[in-house]
Every structure is written in structure tokens, then in C-alpha cells.
């Protein structure tokens, strides 16, 4: 699964209010050769039919899909948590879904994804918290940092909703606070394919 140019093996992204536009912005900047798998938790109403994958499909070079239970995480893929399910990384490098109770009032929860991804990828993981109006993702980002991974948060000024990036920054575990415009390019530089 490794990209030759980097020791990172995956990117996890958490987004809430204002997230659709923010995620789209990041994805649209990724170069065609970007190959690290990306896993996304975007908070979304539990009762919607999943439309996120369709929404992002033609907006990035990665292959976009809603995550299926127990499917292997592959490079070049962008996996999205289905509405009303938590998305986790399993110990064998597959994704796992669960209907455990909501965490931070959210299912899917960003913390659940980030924490399980940190367990599996350790220091080879990049965690990104984008715009949002709650504090989901802060604990997860802290854990990614504790395992030696790289942590990124969108600047408050460029966030449509500020509570989530603010809570993440508050943990004191953030390596880079970046404006939305440069996050895609930042990732491009890391993945040197």
C-alpha cells in the first residue's frame, strides 16, 4: 500500500458543518498521481440516502466509494463513511463498519475513525480536521499525534464553522494549521508519486 515517495500510508479527514465545500476544495487540488488512500467522515443526517460518493465522484482523481464492511483499504481510493454507521480501520488493514451508539452525538464519528486508524497506521497516518460546529475529531487527532502521526487542522478564519477546528487546535497536538486553499497542495508535496 506504500507510496514510494513517503512513509505515510493513509490520510483520514473529518468534516462537519460546511464540510462538503471544504472537502471538495481539498480533493480538487490533489494531483492525478496522488495515491495515498483517504478515509472521510463527513457528519450527515442518519436518514439520508447516501449521496456523498456520487457528489465527490467527478471532483477528484481518486476512485471514490462509500466504504463497504471488511473491504481492504487500497491506494488510490477515497472511502466515505455511510450515513448512520461508524467507520473504523480493522487490524488487518480493512475497513469495518459498526452501529455502536453515536459518539459526540455523531454516527459516523470522526474520533472513532481517527482512533482506530491511529491504532493500525501508527506514525504512518495523516489526520486532518476541517470545518465543523462541534468538537468531534479533537480526541482522535490527539491520539494520532501520540502515535507519531502527522496532524493538520484548517485555520479558524477559513472555516465556515469554527468550533471543530478550534477544539482540535485546543488539544495542543496539531502540527500544521493551514488555510483551506493550501491543504491540497500540502498533501501533494507529501505524496511524491
Amino acid at each position: 500500500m506504500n507510496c514510494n515517495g513517503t512513509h505515510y500510508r493513509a490520510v483520514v479527514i473529518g468534516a462537519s458543518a460546511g464540510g462538503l465545500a471544504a472537502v471538495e476544495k481539498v480533493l480538487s487540488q490533489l494531483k492525478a498521481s496522488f495515491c495515498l488512500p483517504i478515509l472521510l467522515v463527513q457528519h450527515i443526517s442518519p436518514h439520508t440516502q447516501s449521496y456523498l460518493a456520487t457528489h465527490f465522484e467527478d471532483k477528484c482523481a481518486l476512485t471514490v466509494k462509500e466504504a463497504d464492511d471488511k473491504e481492504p483499504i487500497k491506494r488510490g481510493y477515497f472511502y466515505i463513511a455511510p450515513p448512520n454507521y461508524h467507520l473504523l480501520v480493522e487490524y488487518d488493514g480493512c475497513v469495518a463498519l459498526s452501529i455502536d451508539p453515536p459518539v459526540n452525538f455523531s454516527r459516523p464519528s470522526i474520533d472513532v475513525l481517527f482512533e482506530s486508524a491511529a491504532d493500525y497506521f501508527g506514525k504512518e497516518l495523516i489526520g486532518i480536521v476541517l470545518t465543523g460546529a462541534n468538537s468531534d475529531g479533537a480526541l482522535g487527532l490527539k491520539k494520532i499525534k501520540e502515535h507519531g502521526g502527522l496532524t493538520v487542522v484548517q485555520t479558524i478564519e477559513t472555516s465556515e464553522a469554527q468550533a471543530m477546528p478550534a477544539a482540535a487546535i485546543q488539544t495542543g497536538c496539531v502540527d500544521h494549521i493551514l488555510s483551506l486553499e493550501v491543504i491540497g497542495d500540502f498533501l501533494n508535496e507529501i505524496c511524491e508519486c
Partner: protein
Amino acid sequence: MFEENKTANEYLEIQLLLEAIYRKYGYDFREYSVAHTRRRLEYRRAREGMTNYSSMQHKVIHEPAFFEQLLLDLSINVTEMFRDPWFYQKVRELVFPHLQTYPFVKVWHAGCSAGQEVYSMAIMLEEALMRERTQLYATDFNEAILEKAKNGIYPMDVVRQYTTNYQAANGATSLSDYYTADYDSVIIKSQLKEKILFSPHNLATDGVFGEMHLIFCRNVLIYFNRELQNRVFNLFYESLVPGGFLCLGSKESLRFSDVASKFELVSEREKIYRKKREG
């Protein structure tokens, strides 16, 4: 290397803890999804103020009460009446016409949790005038939750959601026809309970449940790894009559199992399958 060792060691400790639970109490979590199991154990570890899983192992061996607690932690009982209303609609539309052709129908709800799913089915059978000739079996490996299922008492605030679901599933009357309301809870009417047999059954370790026309196993297999899922699919195959139906949760699939070719897909989104007739 330190981090990797730490993760590997922790994984080993979890495996040993699950082994201890299995050897001492017979409950087999060794083939559950590790990410999920780890999360539940981590929650308990933090609450108990313990520093590692090995000390949990010691405690679980010596204190049966602690095992009971872990059992509750590890069995996620999240459920609803008419969860995924569109699923229930499809069952009525595509499965019921076949059930109508049998003189007597047997339905198995495997992993029934606190009963909401089997009561939903009992209501649909009632409304299709099939109650008299149906026997429902509702099983779960968690006996505490089975007790709740038998009682059929649910808090009022969740019943509002159930009512919305029932309507979205095109229920024929009003959900309140099927329960008696108390001040802050409701109790399911006994006529619905008459045709349901509740009993313990562990999908990981127990055997075939014979001659079923319809099996519901929703949002249970998602917690198992591929090997265990596969064994359970075989168990369901053996437990169904030819032409019997299997209903899974919306994120579960027969696709990768080795009985996949022995079932036909009836409805993709609703995950309804039908056992092929031999030959």
C-alpha cells in the same frame, strides 16, 4: 519501531483476554472485528482505571461479575422497531407473497437484541393476517437482553421514533394499537408475544436451527470477521428450507461468502436473499 511493537503487544494482550473469556465462560469473541472489540474493551479499561488488558484478563478470570459486565460491553444492543422502514416495505412486498403459500411458517430472528425487530415482524404478520400460522423464534446470546425482549417494555421517548418508522414502512393502522402506554413507557400487547419463542443461541458456537422459511440476521454479522461470517452463513444455509429467505443488515452482504452461489439475490439495497432449490 516502538510504536509498532506497542500496537502488536496490545493486540496480543487483547487476544489473550478473549481467549481467557472463551476458556473460562464459553463465550467466543475471538473472531469478532478487532477494531470494534478493542474500542469496547478500551472503554471499560478506562472506566475501571486499569492500565492494560492483561490486568483485565486477571480480573475477568477471578471475578465472574466482571465478565458479566464485559459481556454487556461487547454485545452492542442498538436496535429500533422498523429500523430502515424501506427494508420492511420490501419484505412485505417481495417475501410475504411466498410465505402466504405455506400452511405454516417459521421465522428466525438471530441476534434479536431487546425484541424491537421481532415485534415489528409480528405486527406485519398480524396485518397480513398470517399471525395464526406463524411461529417466530427470537434468539440472542445475551440472556440479559433476551429478558428485556420478553418483557417488551420500551421508554416513551424512543417510541416516537418507532412510530415514525412504522408509518414510513406503510403500517396499516397506528403503532399505538400494539402497545399499552404507561406514564413514561409502553408495553407490547401480549397477543403479539404469543407467537414468539425467545431463547438463547450463540451464532459463534451453537448449531443449526431447523427448517426456517425466513431468517432475519441484521446488524450482527457486521461485528464478526470474514471467517466467522462465513461459518454463520453456512449455518443459515443449513437452517433454511429450499426457497427460504435470508435478510441481512443494509451493510452486510453474502457476496464474499462461500455459499454465495447457493442463494439468489432478491433485493440488493435491502439485502434480501433466497436459498436456491437444489438442482
